[in-house]
């Protein structure tokens, strides 16, 4: 392990547990606690990936899960973030996005073509000739992307959990720890979350050569761990902010949705790179990355390195590196004035030369372009961003640590609606106006000094505590006056380019300039044209520099350029996490088990499970044969369908009748007890939304049915209108509480009569009549209906008794030739009867006049929902009508389908088929279609265009269709 240094205080690795894994065919040793990247780097392996576009070799950049230089695959999973993913013993890893391995990637030639592949190249080049686009699209799609999706990835249902707290603190650095402790001390329940494996933030790596800050960290963490009010979640990030302080915490095992009463955002800052030629070579990394390697994983980032900095942090990095034996060749400070004397002197005392007002003009790669050989250092003009190449010097090195400033990790703040302002004091966006219940602390709030950050955490906690109704003193935060933390323009122009701004997408400075020249000079347009910030890093290391470049191009202040929208999830989140274990409820009728055991082909009908048809055990019926046989049983003998899915609502109270009159289109106030009427519901626009049957059980009690899919909607509308109209009505939704079955067919009366004490004879129980009594010994509600057959009985019983009654009817019906029938046969049977289905034969615009339902509308009533619209509609000419139709006898051509269009002689679309089916009983194809009104009268002929374009002639006819039988063909 060539770069592993001696055991360090606070290191995150367990040297007692060595691990071995394979990377690109090479065996590598690491320790438990190592990340893949740290273990590789410790072994001197520095080519961890290839860039997205130009396939340039890449090593560690941020080493903080904020960049995508090091993405791996283990053969099963892909895009594994090696910087943070723990090493697993015996794993086999390869870099993604290579052809032939990371070292000998066959696509690396693309780098040589880069002058011909500027941003926008694809948009401009491959769209013509048009016929060639599919060819190029195929090529580009294959070339694009990072890891390959494994379609055989095991399905792991990751739970999506909920958690609750008074205060959610995002970020467990100094300010976050301090905030959590202060809130918990007031008895508040705190959840403290951090994306790193251990809490501490920069307290665990940024020491400037003096590790005494570790004591502060240890004492904070000990206090947090000892506090039962604090739940510390590490290795998980807050992926977004949603209304009412809902924050999804994304961990390795899944997502926890935290509902907090307040949120303290102490998310810190992302270090920003200076931009110079070849700033992407393996060995060139951020200063904080170098510090993390040293202090968390005891790995030297390089042996002989250069620090290039545009703030004081580079000096701190230099001191950390030199403390573990790295030879720091020089500190190159892009600022003319350099660092404060005290800090600068500390560095010089270590024998490190400091070059103020200088820059790295370019890093010089080794011959194989897999590492760095030396740097070219030049005097730097901060105003023009130009290097004076006439005074260049070359310095040998094997690595560069770079620091140019910081960008706030403010995605959550933006999503919460925070107004940010650009502070020229620190050259950083900071919160100006925070939304209610959201607080910011620490570096994201522009506070960098450690003591001040601890204070700021307590200050934010105090504000959160007070927001929750307590009254505690809010501590003032004292900040020492220091130099700004970020450089306003850490860019070094270079005529040959390759000075990368966005490492995800290989975007160089010139790409921005070209984009602006082409008119994409707004930050949102520039983002989309150049794709800056659109890679997996989501601009964490590029957006700030992009904004600075655009501001300079347009000669605008930074705050005028603004920033792009930060949408959740701000960090890439596995699709499997988002999918998680889903809850998709189904409803089961009381007779479900019987259906399954008797060959029912169960299907989802909305939320319900229903039998579409039955294939009895031992039979080899096709679906079509089963449906025709079931329909035949209803026409010739008796059939029974499980109708439990019907909506069933009881309407009680002295105003029940008046309520239904206002709610439905028909009249109910004068309805007799024991009778039923069709109840059609419109919306305010006069559109048909539901139809059912309203039974009057008593003077002040109705029992109303709705379509299966509409029960909840109708019930909700009823509840709403009871309130609006201030009526004395009580509603009970019995949809699930009652099982229902319809016994239909010529023998249905015989069957029902055999099991009930109700007189079901024709005179005693005419069509539409309703009676209560016993069926199979159970209290039942029985209704004469005619939806699927002229003679049918709908029987409603309590849910728990449904199976008992169903079985009794089935058993008794055997001698009568009973067949259960499913929803497919039901659709055919109602079609034969000429009954349309709302929402199937009608659409979101159909009014009753278009669907032959005028008889159900009592326009002379003072009011009903939709009446006002119908009055307007009634004055206008209809342009379509729903009609029943039949295809010619003996039809054997291509069958039209539902939604095939009705076409007139001028080839105009005039309607469409809404239902069509073959009826064996009639030996004809019958259906419903919307046609022009003049074609809706019986005998009118119209044309239907099939999928293949064939024109089929149909004839409008009256319903029900049974006259076709009587006339033997018209």
């Amino acid at each position, binding site marked *: 392990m060539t770069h592993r240094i001696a055991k360090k205080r606070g290191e995150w690795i367990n040297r007692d547990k060595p691990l071995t894994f394979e990377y690109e065919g090479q065996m590598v040793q690491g320790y438990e606690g190592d990340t893949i990247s740290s273990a590789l780097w410790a072994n001197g392996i520095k080519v961890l990936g290839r860039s997205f576009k130009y396939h340039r070799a890449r090593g560690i950049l941020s080493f903080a899960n904020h960049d995508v230089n090091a993405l791996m695959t283990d053969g099963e999973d892909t895009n594994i973030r090696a910087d943070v993913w723990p090493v697993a013993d015996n794993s086999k890893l390869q870099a993604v996005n290579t052809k032939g391995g990371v070292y000998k990637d066959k696509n690396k030639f693309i780098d040589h073509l880069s002058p011909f592949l500027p941003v926008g190249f694809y948009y401009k080049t491959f769209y013509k000739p048009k016929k060639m686009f599919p060819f190029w699209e195929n090529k580009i799609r294959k070339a694009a992307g990072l890891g390959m999706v494994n379609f055989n990835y095991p399905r792991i249902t990751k739970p999506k959990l909920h958690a609750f707290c008074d205060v959610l603190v995002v970020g467990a650095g100094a300010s976050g720890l301090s905030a959590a402790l202060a809130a918990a001390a007031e008895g508040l329940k705190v959840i403290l979350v951090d994306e790193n494996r251990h809490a501490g933030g920069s307290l665990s790596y940024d020491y400037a050569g003096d590790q005494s800050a570790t004591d502060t960290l240890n004492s904070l963490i000990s206090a947090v761990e000892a506090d039962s009010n604090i739940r510390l979640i590490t290795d998980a990030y807050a992926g977004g902010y949603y209304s009412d302080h809902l924050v999804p915490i994304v961990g390795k095992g899944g997502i926890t949705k935290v509902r907090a009463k307040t949120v303290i955002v102490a998310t810190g800052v992302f270090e920003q790179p200076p931009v110079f030629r070849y700033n992407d070579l393996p060995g060139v990394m951020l200063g904080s990355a170098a510090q993390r390697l040293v202090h968390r994983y005891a790995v030297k980032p390089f042996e002989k390195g250069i620090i290039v900095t545009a703030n004081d942090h580079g000096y701190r990095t230099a001191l950390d590196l030199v403390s573990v034996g790295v030879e720091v060749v020089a500190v190159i400070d892009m600022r003319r004035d350099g660092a404060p004397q005290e800090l600068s002197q500390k560095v010089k005392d270590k024998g490190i030369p400091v070059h103020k007002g200088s820059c790295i003009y370019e890093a010089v790669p080794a011959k194989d372009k897999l590492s760095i050989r030396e740097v070219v250092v030049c005097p730097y003009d901060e105003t023009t961003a130009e290097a004076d190449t006439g005074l260049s010097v070359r310095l040998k090195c094997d690595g560069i640590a770079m620091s140019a400033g910081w960008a706030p990790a403010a995605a959550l703040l933006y999503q919460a609606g925070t107004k940010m302002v650009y502070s020229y004091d620190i050259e950083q966006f900071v919160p100006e106006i925070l939304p209610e219940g959201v607080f910011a602390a620490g570096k994201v709030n522009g506070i960098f000094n450690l003591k001040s950050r601890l204070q700021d955490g307590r200050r934010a906690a105090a504000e959160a505590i007070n927001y929750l109704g307590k009254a505690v003193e809010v501590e003032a935060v004292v900040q020492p006056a220091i130099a700004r933390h970020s450089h306003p323009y850490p860019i070094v122009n270079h005529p040959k380019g390759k000075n990368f701004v966005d490492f995800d997408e290989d975007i160089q400075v010139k790409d921005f300039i070209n984009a602006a020249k082409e008119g994409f000079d707004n930050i949102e347009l520039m983002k989309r044209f150049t794709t800056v910030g659109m890679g997996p890093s989501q601009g964490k290391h590029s957006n700030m520099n992009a904004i600075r470049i655009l501001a300079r191009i347009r000669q605008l202040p930074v705050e005028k350029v603004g920033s792009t929208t930060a949408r959740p999830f701000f960090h890439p989140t596995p699709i499997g996490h988002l999918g998680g274990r889903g809850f998709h409820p189904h409803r*089961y009728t009381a007779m479900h088990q019987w259906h399954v055991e008797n060959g029912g082909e169960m299907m989802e009908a909305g939320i319900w499970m229903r039998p579409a048809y039955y294939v009895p055990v031992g039979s080899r019926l096709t679906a079509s044969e089963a449906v025709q046989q079931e329909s035949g049983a209803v026409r010739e003998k008796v059939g029974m369908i499980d109708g439990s899915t019907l909506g069933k609502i009881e309407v009680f109270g002295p105003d029940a009748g008046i309520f239904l009159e206002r709610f439905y289109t028909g009249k109910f106030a004068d309805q007799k007890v024991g009778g039923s009427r069709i109840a059609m519901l419109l919306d305010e626009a006069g559109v048909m939304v539901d139809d059912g049957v309203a039974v009057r059980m008593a003077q002040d009690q109705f029992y109303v049915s709705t379509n299966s899919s509409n029960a909840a909607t109708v019930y909700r509308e009823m509840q709403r209108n009871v309130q609006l109209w201030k009526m004395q009505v009580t509603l009970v939704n019995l949809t699930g509480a*009652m099982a229902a079955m319809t016994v239909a067919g010529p023998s249905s009366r015989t069957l029902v009569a055999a099991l009930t004490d109700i007189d079901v004879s024709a005179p005693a129980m005419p069509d539409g009549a309703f009676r209560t009594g016993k069926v199979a010994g159970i209290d039942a509600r029985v209704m004469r209906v005619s939806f699927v057959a002229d003679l049918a009985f709908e029987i409603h019983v309590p849910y728990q008794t449904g199976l*008992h009654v169903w079985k009794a009817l089935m058993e008794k019906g055997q001698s009568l030739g009973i067949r259960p029938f499913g929803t497919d046969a039901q659709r055919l049977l109602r079609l034969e009867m000429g009954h349309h289905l709302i929402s199937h034969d009608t659409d979101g615009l159909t009014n009753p006049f278009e669907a032959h339902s005028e008889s159900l509308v009592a326009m002379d009533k003072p009011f009903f929902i939709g009446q006002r619209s119908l009055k307007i509609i009634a004055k206008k000419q209809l342009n379509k009508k729903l009609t029943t139709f039949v295809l010619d006898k003996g039809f054997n051509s291509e069958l039209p389908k539902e939604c095939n269009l009705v076409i007139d002689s001028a080839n105009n679309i005039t309607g469409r088929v809404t239902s069509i089916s073959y009826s064996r009983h009639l030996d004809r194809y019958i259906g419903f279609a919307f046609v022009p009104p003049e074609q809706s009268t019986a005998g009118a002929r119209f044309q239907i265009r099939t999928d293949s374009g064939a024109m089929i002639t149909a004839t409008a006819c009256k319903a029900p269709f049974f006259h076709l039988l009587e006339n033997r063909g018209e």
Partner: protein
Amino acid sequence: MQDAVLTSPVAFAQKVRKPVLGQINGMQAALSFGGVNVEAQNSRILGICDVSCLDRFGLKGPKAAEWLQTSGMKLPATANSWVLQDSGSLLMRLGNTEFLLEDSLENDLARMFSNKALDGGGIHKVIRSDAAFIVSGERTAALFSEVCAIDLDNGMLGDNRLVMTVIAGVSATIIKQTLKGQPVYRIWCDGTFGPYLWKTLLGIMEEHGGGPVGFNFYYTLN
């Protein structure tokens, strides 16, 4: 034994586990799913028991509270709360004017009320076909953190409070009780959702080392 007239809404979902069946209140119910020790362990870790067979009586209407009071019932003072009657029956107030009474095995108030002709005059019987469950165990918090988006662990169910919420996508009523000295959650939902909810909750419970518990574990047959 004569076939039961009533079937638990959850019956077919339980069938695959081959429970020992028996009739409770005329309903075929799962009396046990295995040895007493296994059920005790399930109950201790994370267990679910189908108690849909307990008799229930629903009452709704502007005079519902008055009628119940006249009938000698102790009323929950506010909506979304419950009170245990001296007889052992559980009376839940689902709204200002809506109540649900559930008998224990030893009494038959609900059945008695159900057999009365009551409709009219501001009170209306509500036909109930609930799927009813007892959920117990030390890992209930982990279960609810996955299936429920509200904080049931934060005193929300204390002081005889009742919560109507969504459990695994299903509207449900939930309270916290003590049964046989064990704190348990009681859950009621529309019976048609019962099989789904049973399967869903049980699936998660088994991941936590829990499992099904039969009716006999909580209620002793006379």
